[in-house]
């Protein structure tokens, strides 16, 4: 039977979820293989080199760069305190001395007799990496981090903003077609992950921000409203570093689009359960999609789980059309003709014949997304 590769988002009822928790620079790993992990547990930490202050000392003291070393009362590698006098000129007969006090707490990193500059480095900045999900340490990467595995339900969105958050899932909309309205968001929802149906307006999202909601999962959002949240036009879909209390995960796309039934019902199955979510998205080579991970508390550590979706579509597959003029419609593959077909745009493409509500359409395979679940 003919099959076709079609990218699809994962909607998995049960999988062995693995995540790498890696430090930005080498440091210390605090856990061992097999150890149980909670989402907030620190698994690795390091110190990033502190910021530096470059001081043109020769200008400040009005001396030649070559004389800077003599004027300094400290040497490379010495610790200095904010306000501590660290350089002084000899003056004339002991008078008219010029001096310089350290502007920060730190360490003298270098002194240049060529440029007359000194570099003072601030104290290191500690960085900690947490476990993100409830699970078990699967692998330790020495000095760099760990791989955490967890038996979990796993859902990918198409686009998100803001980084990792944790919270209890709370179903707000009663169907995938229903919008998540502003008046449905209350102060009791602080720290929760709210699930809507087809759409959330900018006003409703702002209210969620105001009440410190941990995250929103919804079918659609208006692209042009992102500017109001981010403060700039999102030109390239690379997100995750936004400083927002409420992560937003859009499962279907921009506009008012009902959430896929499989995604909605899987989330509904886990209503009131704790989940870890991440809005980070990177649509470039090495694609990253936003995710919702719901640990299942079942022991499938060694069990062979359905870790990967089968991206192939064949006759009978359920697919979603992801481009105009039938955007958002869900149908069943009736046939996969091998020949190139001409579209209305005169583009020659490989197509799939899709049955939507008893009507058949020819759709470019590139415009289809698999919506099968496991």
């Amino acid at each position, binding site marked *: 039977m003919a099959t076709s590769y079609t*990218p699809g988002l994962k909607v998995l009822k049960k999988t062995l979820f693995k995540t790498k928790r890696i430090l930005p*620079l*080498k440091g210390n790993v605090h856990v061992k293989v097999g150890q149980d992990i909670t989402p907030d547990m620190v698994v690795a930490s390091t110190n990033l*080199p502190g*910021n*530096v*202050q*470059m001081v043109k000392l020769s200008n400040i003291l009005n001396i030649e*760069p070559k004389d800077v070393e003599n004027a300094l009362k400290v040497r490379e590698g010495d610790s200095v305190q904010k306000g501590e006098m660290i350089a002084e000129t000899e003056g004339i007969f002991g008078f008219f001395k010029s001096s310089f006090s350290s502007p920060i707490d730190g360490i003298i*990193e*270098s002194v*240049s007799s*060529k*440029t007359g*500059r000194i*570099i003072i*480095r601030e104290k290191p900045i500690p960085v900690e990496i947490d476990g993100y999900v409830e699970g078990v340490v699967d692998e330790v990467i020495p000095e*760099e981090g760990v791989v955490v595995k967890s038996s979990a339900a796993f859902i990918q969105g*198409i*686009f998100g903003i803001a980084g990792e958050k944790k919270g209890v899932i709370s179903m707000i909309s009663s169907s995938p077609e229903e919008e998540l309205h502003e008046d449905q968001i209350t102060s009791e929802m602080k720290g929760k992950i709210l699930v809507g149906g087809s759409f959330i307006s900018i006003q409703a999202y702002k209210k969620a921000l105001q009440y410190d909601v941990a995250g929103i999962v919804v079918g659609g959002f*208006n*692209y*042009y409203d992102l500017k109001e949240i981010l403060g700039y*036009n*999102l*030109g*390239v*879909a690379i997100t995750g570093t936004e400083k927002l209390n409420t992560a937003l995960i859009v499962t279907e*796309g*921009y*506009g008012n689009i009902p959430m896929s039934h499989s995604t909605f019902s899987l989330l509904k199955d886990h209503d009131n359960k704790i989940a870890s979510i991440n809005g980070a*998205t990177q*649509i*470039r*080579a*090495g694609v990253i999609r936003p995710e919702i991970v719901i640990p299942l508390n079942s022991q499938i550590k060694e069990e062979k789980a359905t870790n990967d979706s089968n991206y192939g579509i064949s006759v009978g597959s359920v697919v979603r059309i*992801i*481009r*105009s*003029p039938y*955007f958002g419609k869900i149908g069943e593959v009736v046939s996969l003709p091998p020949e190139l077909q001409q*579209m*209305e*745009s*005169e*583009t*020659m*493409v490989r197509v799939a014949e899709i049955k939507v509500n008893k009507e058949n359409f020819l*759709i*470019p395979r*590139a*415009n289809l*997304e698999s919506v099968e679940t496991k």
Partner: protein
Amino acid sequence: MKLNTILATDCGSTTTKAILIENVNGKYRLTFRGEAPTTVEAPFEDVTKGVLNAVQEIEELSGRKLISEDNIITPQNSNEGVDIYVSTSSAGGGLQMMVAGVVKSMSAESAERAALGAGSIVMDVLASNDGRKPHEKITRIRQLRPDMILLSGGTDGGTTSHVTELADILAASNPQPRLGQDYKLPIIYAGNNKARDTIKNTLDGISDLDIVDNIRPILEKENLEPSRDKIHDLFMEHVMAQAPGYKKLMGWTDAPIMPTPGAVGSLIEMIAERDNISVVGVDIGGATTDVFSVFNKKFNRTVSANLGMSYSICNVLADAGLENVLRWVPFKIETSDLINRIGNKMIRPTTVPQSLEELIIEQAIAREALRLSFIQHKNFATSLKGVQSDRTISDAFEQSSSGMSLVNMMELDLLVGSGGVLSHAPRRQQSARMLIDSFMPEGITQLAVDSIFMMPQLGVLANIDKEEFKEDAKDASLEVFEKDCLIRLGTCIAPVGEVDKSTSMGYAELRFSDGEKQTIDLLEGVLLAIEYPYKEVKVEIFPQKSIDIGAGKGEKIATTIFGGEVGIIFDCRNRPISVSDDSQTRVQELKRWSDALNEYPKKAE
């Protein structure tokens, strides 16, 4: 030794493309091509797998055995293998560099030109006078994690303190390479030769430092070659060697692997030199748009890093503005719906336009992406800044804020487009319109598109150093470029100057190769095309006294031009091309221009 068979691949970020070139009856021709997904990323993590898959497709199509035990057979052995194998690469994000110089518009700009010319993406340009405080520069260097840094500054023998300070900043940031934690970041120093020892003391320990000749030995001279060559060497030795499978691939190729845009640039430079012409080339991709030009024998390349047709399509919308995109759309559309549609293309970048309406919108966005990229290019491709030269009054009017743009559209001889939206447009007329509307050529300009984007492979082929193959490889590259790579769209004739609306700008007399003659009245505002294949046409153009067609105002031109898949296009729309603010008039205008070229199918009402 005579070259008979050549295999060349280009490992792109998503697709690896292979071509087979053979000597057929004494002429080099592209005979077969194959492609396969690139395999740099997980789960494969070995670029050679994608290469072998693409080559295997050629094997199947040609019936010629090219692979043995997971290796490409070279040299050729009767009916097996090829004489040479070469490759380019932009997989894994290509070559990403940061450049630094003392003065932003001088040494830093020369460093940027060298890095771009070598085929890299320039992530940031640091300069002593860029307005950022040292700690801001340090934070930026740490955030970016480039593949390589090029440091320049100062003329030879001049003051050393500024460039030394830049080195201090680099040292303080302790930059880490993007790929892998276990090797030192390559830094190339191409600045004041008097500062070399100090630079060495500052940077040698924290980086893999290489010193080459100064990029601006004196203010009036730019010396890009040594830096460009060193970037290519380091790209091979350091950057590529870190990417999965590249060590193996490097062992297979008969010439160094070149960064894809570096190879394209080199080919364009070579064509311009051979034919003594001015060329503009553009490659519009999903994420970026590259523009290459050669004017007055000076080569320039720019990368508009966030102007593309899928991954960065929303950035085109943001930079150009909705109004500018909509001015090319000949129907009414709900703007909020349009914005969401464009947003959905960004998050689902592999989709294709099914309806005619979607195609027209995509091509409207392409016009703006191309227009903006070309503006960036014109602003960058300038004569050296900070150099005193004699200028006439008219030069002074042309002068941009700093340095003069080398791009002169009236001098442009050949405009080549490539990238999906141009190369794969359903009708060639659409490609021609997109090129004309966005680049706005003036006078007489040939238009072409790269059929399957094989310029990278031909570029690396033309750069083979091995003595025994050198000449043949260059011949093969240029012959295939002419015969198989370029699809000639035709010639655009655009008179420029002021006349009243809809009045005559002059007339043209065409004499076709079969002896037939035709006279065309050049009416202001009119766009028209004469279908004629890629054959010679003698043309004489008689412009009105206020109109220039290339020889000066009112000066007649007699020359030979060529037709092509679209033919000979007379574009009498004045420069810059403007469309009416009134939506009804605009739609009528756009439809008239489209119909003149038979650009779109007539949709049943």
